[in-house]
């Protein structure tokens, strides 16, 4: 049963990711990415990482993708006159596709004699309590530093996107 759900979710994730790449309009890409994120949240639930699934939905779908959709609607983009796939594009895309295939093949080769291959059986689910304990004791400094990064990024985004010499 779990295997069937995994196969369906992974097929849907791959299709949604391909749709992001091949949809012509950016807003369609954002909607496809929304489907992709929700599929990944389902995969997280499947592997017992419910907290990550909640954060996936709240942070990515609720914040990041809304920001994307907002910016696309704000910019009022015109349709591109060029066709999506032309001969020149196919020529230009060949190195990219080779690069992607190279990533897959190299990772597959690396996994063949990885040290963890024998341990790749299902482990008990990690409890929320253990994650919280580790996050707020062992990794507290990193956790605090992310707040600084978020603050700097928010200020930086405002500074970058405002008009020259004008008010934001």
């Amino acid at each position, binding site marked *: 049963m779990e295997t069937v759900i*995994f196969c369906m979710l*992974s097929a849907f*994730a*791959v299709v949604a*990711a391909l749709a992001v*790449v091949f949809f012509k309009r*950016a807003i369609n*890409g*954002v909607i496809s*990415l929304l489907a*992709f994120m929700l599929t*990944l949240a389902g*995969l*997280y639930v499947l*592997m*017992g*990482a419910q907290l*990550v699934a909640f*954060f*996936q939905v709240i*942070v*990515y779908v609720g914040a*990041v993708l809304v*920001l*994307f959709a907002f*910016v696309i609607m704000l*910019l009022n*983009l015109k349709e591109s006159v*060029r066709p999506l796939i032309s001969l020149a594009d196919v020529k*230009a*895309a060949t*190195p*990219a596709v080779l*690069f*992607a295939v190279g*990533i*897959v093949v190299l990772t597959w080769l690396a*996994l063949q004699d990885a040290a963890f291959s024998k*341990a*790749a059986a*299902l482990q*008990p689910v*990690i409890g929320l309590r253990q*994650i919280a304990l*580790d*996050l707020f004791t062992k*990794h507290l400094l*990193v*956790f605090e530093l*992310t707040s600084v990064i*978020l603050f*700097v*990024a*928010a200020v*930086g*985004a*405002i*500074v*970058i*996107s405002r008009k020259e010499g004008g008010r934001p």
Partner: protein
Amino acid sequence: MTLYHFVGLGVVLFAIGAAGFFIRNNAVVLLLCIEIMLNAVNLIFASFARFLYGTEGQIFIFIIMTIAAAEAAVGLGIIIALYRSHKTLDMSLIKDLKG
């Protein structure tokens, strides 16, 4: 359903995102492809955390999500500035950097 299945799925998704980053010209779609790659890495982290039993994988995911949110905010700010100065988001038409 083993570790290999999840890692394989993550690698395939990462490859799709990486290829899309080089194929497409629209700046917004480039950012979307970056998000695909970040999510693929998150999936691989979560599967290692699940199959090798450790909390670090999930904690890394939270950090990566924070960085991704910050990156999206800054990237969209750059896109708005780019659109103001060039009136287009087609990366093949923006040649100021002479790359």
